[in-house]
């Protein structure tokens, strides 16, 4: 098989899918490759939280625009849907230390554009009757919500097809020669431009181009309950950000927050740590006491990528014309589709609506001898 494309996007997660989709709509012939199936890694298994209160301040403007995209997904994604649901978000503090942390973080996020107001426990319980007593302070953000992340691949697939993107699943790329010949399990694939969108595997992908880009791997644990009667109606978190809690329309409650399991780049998610599983569900049950009545039915792992400064890697790859990168976005699912859209704008030669996050800063060791 020998094919020639305007752009090859490697990695079919939410950012790869969005980038490929908007490139194709911009008139390019696009191939989207994944070693596995579309949105079956982090993009399909994350907590689906569309919140501002766990998003890094620098990313708030992006997350706000992405939130709007998620809520209107069928309109721009050929009917594709992740059942995005808008609801208020609460980030609560049970201790003085958490209250102090919340005050500071809410202020910084508010300055970045997130409409977060601080309220007391009673007011928080009026918004979320399922919330436990003993809340000292809560951050309330009317722009919040959640999606069913497992539907993401299904949602993008039809739009990609309609836009004419060639989707090559179960097709590992083994390397890149010249500009640009992709060595894949299905033969050589030639493309004018290449976009690396490989999540935690970006480090290996960058190495194909001779670029050293260290990417840290987080192994986030998630837990879900059986269907149960309504116990909550908001997206709930704690000030530290180590709890995310929501109840889906089908009655299941998803418990996340980034508690760490065992895994790595090479082996993927290896195991859920029982002690962290327990810590996570204790935090959940403390926050929404009715969860004590739930049965936990499943847990799983998702791999999240993080750069040295925990800010995204989105932009051109320095020194290699027509090579681009996208990923390592903290709370990346929330901001994902918008990040894909602005990268596609840049690749198509337009000015992106908001600035990208060029990776030059991550490639050179700066001396900090002040």
């Amino acid at each position, binding site marked *: 098989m020998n094919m020639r494309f305007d752009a090859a996007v490697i990695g079919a997660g939410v950012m790869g899918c969005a980038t490929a989709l908007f490139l194709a709509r911009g008139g390019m012939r696009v191939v989207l490759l994944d070693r596995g199936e579309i949105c079956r890694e982090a993009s399909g298994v994350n907590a689906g939280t569309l919140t501002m209160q766990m998003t890094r301040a620098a990313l708030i403007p992006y997350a706000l625009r992405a939130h709007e995209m998620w809520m209107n997904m069928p309109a721009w994604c050929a009917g594709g849907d992740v059942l995005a649901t808008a609801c208020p978000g609460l980030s609560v503090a049970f201790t003085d230390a958490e209250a102090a942390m919340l005050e500071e973080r809410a202020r910084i996020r508010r300055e970045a554009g997130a409409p977060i107001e601080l309220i007391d426990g009673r007011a928080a319980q009026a918004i979320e009757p399922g919330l436990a007593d003993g809340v000292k302070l809560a951050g309330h953000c009317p722009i919040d919500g959640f999606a069913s992340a497992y539907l993401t691949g299904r949602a993008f*697939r039809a739009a990609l097809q309609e836009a004419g993107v060639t989707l090559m699943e179960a097709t590992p790329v083994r390397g890149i020669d010249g500009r640009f010949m992709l060595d894949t399990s299905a033969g050589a694939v030639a493309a004018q431009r290449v976009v690396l969108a490989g999540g935690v595997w970006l480090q290996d992908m960058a190495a194909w181009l001779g670029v050293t880009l260290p990417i840290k791997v987080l192994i986030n644990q998630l837990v879900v309950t059986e269907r149960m009667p309504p116990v909550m109606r908001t997206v709930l978190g704690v000030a530290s950000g180590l709890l995310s809690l929501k109840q889906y329309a089908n009655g299941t409650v998803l418990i996340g927050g980034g508690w760490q399991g065992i895994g790595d780049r090479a082996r993927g998610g290896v195991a859920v740590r029982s002690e962290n599983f327990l810590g996570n569900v204790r935090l959940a049950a403390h926050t929404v006491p009715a969860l004590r009545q739930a*049965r*936990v039915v499943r*847990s799983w792992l998702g791999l999240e990528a993080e750069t040295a400064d925990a800010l995204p890697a989105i932009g051109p790859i320095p020194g290699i014309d027509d090579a681009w990168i996208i990923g390592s976005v903290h709370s990346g699912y929330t901001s994902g589709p918008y990040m894909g859209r602005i990268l596609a704008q840049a690749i198509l030669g337009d000015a992106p609506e908001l600035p990208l996050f060029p990776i030059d800063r991550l490639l050179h060791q700066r001396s900090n001898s002040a």
Partner: protein
Amino acid sequence: MIFDVAVLGGGPAGMAAAAEAARGGARVVLLEESPAPGGQVYRAPPAGFEMKPDRDRQEGDALRAALAASGADIRTGCRVWGLGGGPLVPEGQFDAPFSLSALSADGAPFTVQSRALILCCGTHERIIPFPGWTLPGVIGLAAATILLKAQGILPGQRVVVAGAGPLLYAVAAKILAGGGSVAALIDAATPGEWLRALPALSARPDLLAQGMAWRAKLLAARVPVLTGAQVTAAEGNKVLSHVRVAHRVFEADALCIGHGLVPATEASRTYRARHVHRPEDGGWVPVLDTAQRTSVPFLYAAGDGAGVRGAAAAPAAGRLAARTALHDLGFSLAYASEEDAALKRARRTGAAMARMMTLRPAMVAAIPAETIICRCEGVTRSEIEKAAAAGANTINQLKHFTRCGMGPCQGRMCGEAAGALLAAARGVDVAELGFATGRIPLRPVPMASILGDFDYADIPVPAPAPI
């Protein structure tokens, strides 16, 4: 304390493995879900409940007595939900002791650690869906044996027994013995299949004689026996009243139905052991060497959970696993293995029965389009086929497309049929679909019982992400 050997599951394989390991001088713990060891075939009645002992009871009692005398730490009535240790360690670290998180019979959480782990987790039942299979009154053959064996409870007054394998005849005979009536026995196997199995069955004349006795009972009671047949629908207004078999209709208040046994591989999948799909063994099974070792160091499997071979073959396999574990742990064994020939004979008979219980593709092909496959999430055959057409290529992807297997049964009830349907729709072998990733909890766990007493301040909340 770290045990030398932990045995997960107290059926015939697990009882024998634990007793053998303890006999060899190891510190052994056995974890079992039921109130007493025994497993499905050698199930013991609850304490204080008197039942006429049958042949299975006697064999079970012998295994129980040997286990009790062995010095193994026997923990019954406990629910194991968390698995860790072994190969489940961060990159670059040495394997850790195996670690099992469980709830005791009174609901108290505890953790057990061991240097070696023997999985004797048995099977769950395969039921190929048909219209009406979710009606009250329709139960599994295995469920019927629990009712009958543990407390002599009849599943109904007038019962249709249907499906495949020797369990059919055992259940029907027990219902008759208990004073119930059997409206019909519907055997998916043809007389030809039974004939072809005869040579293998004769390797264990005792089991063959038992089977003949069951059949004689049915004959004497003039129970209609339909062979090469299958239930086409269970019907009734809110509860079962009729069972349809092609053009024949049987009045019944219970239908006991099962189409074979599927090895329970949740634990070996969670430990990331290598698995292979072998329909004649019941489906996905861990890859074992000739001494019951899985691909994971110090992790062993025995009994039907490692490939369906029946209760008669299980104790010998359990003992072999125990001796291998002790050998690998550095114990010197003063005695040689003595029952390889018996194990071989029992395995031959078991294999013939397992073949009879292999998933029948024709039965899956006959499922009507709107029949529910995943009863937890209400997913029908046509929805599975639609997902296949829309790009769901693997079992894990099918979950994402349809929620099939995401309910409280964790995919146990629907997994086999869903896999066969997806494979057929895609025109590939079921082995190509892969299997659902193994993750804790091993069973759904009530949150209240694992939470325990805790102070908010004691929850080890990790450091927050940067703002």
